[in-house]
């Protein structure tokens, strides 16, 4: 019996949050060419969405309340998800609060969200943890650490315990949501963090939660809290 406890001990030790000094953005796991695509501020692929977002900001009269996005939206993306009127909402949900016609994962919502998030590029992630958001943070953390799906996997098993190793030939990143919405080469388009979550859930053969599901927004809060202090890269490019 003692022998088994000794065997289990190292497994228990390696589970746990990544120490701040060892945290790495997905950017650091990418190749030189993909990094160059993200660094290209003038002709990188996400520029197309930023230009559309800027046009939508004018068309939907966001400026009527918020003025110039370059000033009013600075730092906003670093604070979301946040509790608004007693409910946890992520950046997409907050962006469409006056424009519900923008459906999840539509080009227009992604463009407007990318434009808003872009204003916080280079700023440290700083989601607020208070009495209202604590319960969501705990449920997001529980989701991250609970095994689910037909493969009986938890998010933490890859992204806390085995980051840096390879899965199907590609490096496993640490799952820090530093650059959403992202231009993902696999998608050939811009997509949200919820879409990325759904990719992972599919891979784990777990229940595919819909866009805007409270579980996914709580998970987003936990991951943003886990990446606190890291710099936003939105809109980032990822393979």
């Amino acid at each position: 019996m003692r022998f088994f406890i000794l065997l289990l001990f190292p497994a228990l030790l390696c589970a746990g949050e990544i120490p701040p000094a060892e945290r790495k953005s997905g950017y650091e796991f990418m190749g030189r060419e993909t990094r160059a695509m993200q660094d290209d501020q003038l002709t990188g692929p996400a520029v197309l969405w930023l230009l559309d977002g800027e046009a939508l900001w004018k068309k939907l009269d966001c400026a009527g309340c918020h003025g110039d996005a370059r000033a009013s939206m600075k730092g906003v993306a670093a604070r979301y998800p946040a509790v608004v009127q007693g409910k946890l909402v992520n950046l997409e949900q907050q962006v469409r609060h006056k424009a519900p016609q923008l459906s999840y994962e539509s080009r227009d919502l992604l463009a407007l969200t990318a434009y808003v998030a872009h204003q916080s590029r280079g700023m440290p992630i700083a989601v607020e943890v208070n009495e209202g958001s604590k319960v969501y943070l705990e449920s997001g953390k529980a989701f991250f650490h609970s095994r689910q799906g037909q493969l009986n996997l938890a998010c933490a098993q890859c992204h806390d315990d085995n980051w840096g190793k390879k899965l199907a030939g590609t490096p496993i990143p640490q799952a820090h949501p530093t650059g959403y919405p992202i231009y993902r080469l696999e998608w050939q388009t811009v997509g949200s963090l919820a879409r990325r979550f759904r990719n992972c859930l599919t891979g784990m053969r777990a229940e595919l939660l819909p866009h805007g599901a409270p579980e996914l927004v709580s998970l987003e809060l936990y991951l943003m809290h886990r990446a606190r202090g890291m710099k936003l890269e939105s809109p980032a490019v990822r393979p």
Partner: protein
Amino acid sequence: MARVVVNVPAEAKRGEVIEIRTLAGHPMETGFRRTQLGELIPRDIIRTLACTYNGVEVFRAELHPAVAANPLVTFTTVATESGTLEFRWTGDNGFSATQSASIKVV
């Protein structure tokens, strides 16, 4: 409306080699993919990109189904005189987009 972006240096020395970057928003659907019901998704790609410098063609590219979505095409030319560079993309289903940029040669 198609979204296209070009990046041309605003100013260059005469005889200098300048880099021109062009980005076009386009799905570049290959024509080889199928829907979940097995139906072929028809091809929809950009076929050509041409650039003229004060009316003279200095660059032309043919694009094919293997090119990724939102193609970025970078090329160089020699700055000969001040003027305008005109870019034209054409493709399947009557796709057409134009963009221009001016350059000052000193």
